[in-house]
């Protein structure tokens, strides 16, 4: 494999079809009425700015999630996948999922991390792009802030 090919492959690994699809056609995009939990996620590095909305029912289950804002392909796709994945989870499950995603994507995680992150695996290409890990994890940090009712803006810097 030439350097040229290797480089192209790494890029394609980052910008997989699934990612580009979610970036261009984000699911659950828009404002959620009557959210029970919200948080802003800001990445001052590149101006990513997302607002995440969640509605949690009395039994502690996420019954709806949406997001608004602007961001790079990675952060938007990650937010889109986040909403897709966490709707239906209990908040404690979502928090556990948050930990698994962040540790997998930052490449710092335990290889033996038991939680299967499912579709989020499509984002694993960021491991080769350390500067972009923050983009991929931004919506997840916002998820945590929202569920913790932590009114601070989640920032990755």
């Amino acid at each position, binding site marked *: 494999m030439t350097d040229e090919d290797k480089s192209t492959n*790494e*890029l394609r690994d980052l910008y997989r*079809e699934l990612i580009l699809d979610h970036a*261009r056609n984000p699911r659950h995009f828009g404002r959620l009425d009557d959210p029970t939990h919200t948080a802003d996620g800001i990445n001052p590095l590149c*101006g*990513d700015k997302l607002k995440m909305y969640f509605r949690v029912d009395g039994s502690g289950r996420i019954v709806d999630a949406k997001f608004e804002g602007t961001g790079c392909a*990675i952060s938007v796709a990650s937010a889109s996948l986040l909403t897709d994945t966490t709707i239906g989870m209990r908040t404690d499950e979502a928090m556990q999922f948050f930990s698994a995603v962040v540790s997998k994507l930052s490449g710092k995680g335990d290889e033996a991390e038991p939680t299967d992150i499912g579709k989020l695996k499509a984002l694993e290409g960021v491991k080769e792009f350390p500067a*972009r890990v923050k983009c991929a994890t931004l919506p997840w940090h916002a998820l945590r802030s929202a569920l913790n009712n932590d009114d601070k803006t989640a920032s990755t810097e």
Partner: protein
Amino acid sequence: MNTAQNSMQDDDTGTFDMESYRAEFPILSREINGCPLVYLDSAASSQLPNTVINAVSEYQKTKHANVHRGVHTLSHLATDAYEGARDSIVDFIGAASRSEIILTSGTTESINLVAQSFARPILGSGDKIVITQLEHHSNIVPWQLVCEQTGAELHVIPINERGEVSLDDVVAALDDNVRLLAVAYVSNALGSILPIKEIVKEAHDRSIPVLVDGAQAVPHIPVDVQDLDCDFFAFSGHKMFAPTGSGVLYGKENILEKMPPYKGGGDMILEVHFEGTTYNELPYKFEAGTPNISSVIGLGESIAFLTAIGMRNVYDHENRVLDYLTSQLSTLDEMRLIGTAAKKASVQSFMLADIHPHDLGTILDHQGVAIRTGHHCAMPVMDYFAVPGTARASLALYNNENDVDRMIEALVKAREVFRS
């Protein structure tokens, strides 16, 4: 490299070999992700030539000591080198005397000094500070802070869709309540060169002092502060091939004389007693504490480097490469150039199709091409153009046409990746 060398030989400054200056920058021969580095981020921070790097380490290996306060030889050598750099700065920007050159940690500190020591004591409610829409955060936030502290108001001169500031709009903003006009010479996000001399004249006709943020001017165009006639002029060493941590505030002596000190500490005093303290004379009154001796010595050396090339040559060379850059970018489909002022230096911002600048930045970096993406510390400019950020290529004297070609290739690849 061939493209660049050919074009250098073809044009009318063929005898002037910019490539040999480029070779002085060691970082430019390294590889990034397996490709030779193309560095197009000098507006954020420029690279350092060997002469600067070596001057700093030689200083540290052979003459370091604290300045001003010692009779021993090393202290004397360090003081001479440090004060010698100040003399170089005087000459480089055409100041009237060494008393007018205050050494700071950078443009940001220079502007904060003026905000706190010049503006704060004279501002009250009803007073105005005027800036423009294209300022860097460092020429916005210090004024927001001092306005909050004093009740004064910040007024903003608009820009047009090319990223220009018109003299008429400046004049319209200058009423009787304006206490200071603070304006960039060259926009770091758009590259626009503002008509500073004319702006200063209009302001002075109305007795309004002017601070010029020269951070993006000094590395690219010849500057003469006495010709501009501005009252303050701020810039950073690290954008003009010197180490980080050094900067300059030029101020007219009669104005600096009247200002209270900014920080208290060693070196800015003549005598300290609990009953009262006498401040030192200019410029020391504004230089509290041990200065950044080694970076300032580096700055003196980078000025020597620029002086040897000649700022006129730097400007002509960069201008040619910038023209080439802009015309090559224009050949790409779905290219939106942001910042198309008639007079520009060094910088071109752009958007390519629907690719977020941050993604562009990653794809280019993967091919060894370093550009900056984001708001460039000029969020109001992003607001004006209604973009979350831009991709920005910025040039310095070491860039050439080959760098431009490499960036264009990388942009083509980005389109491909995103088309998949």
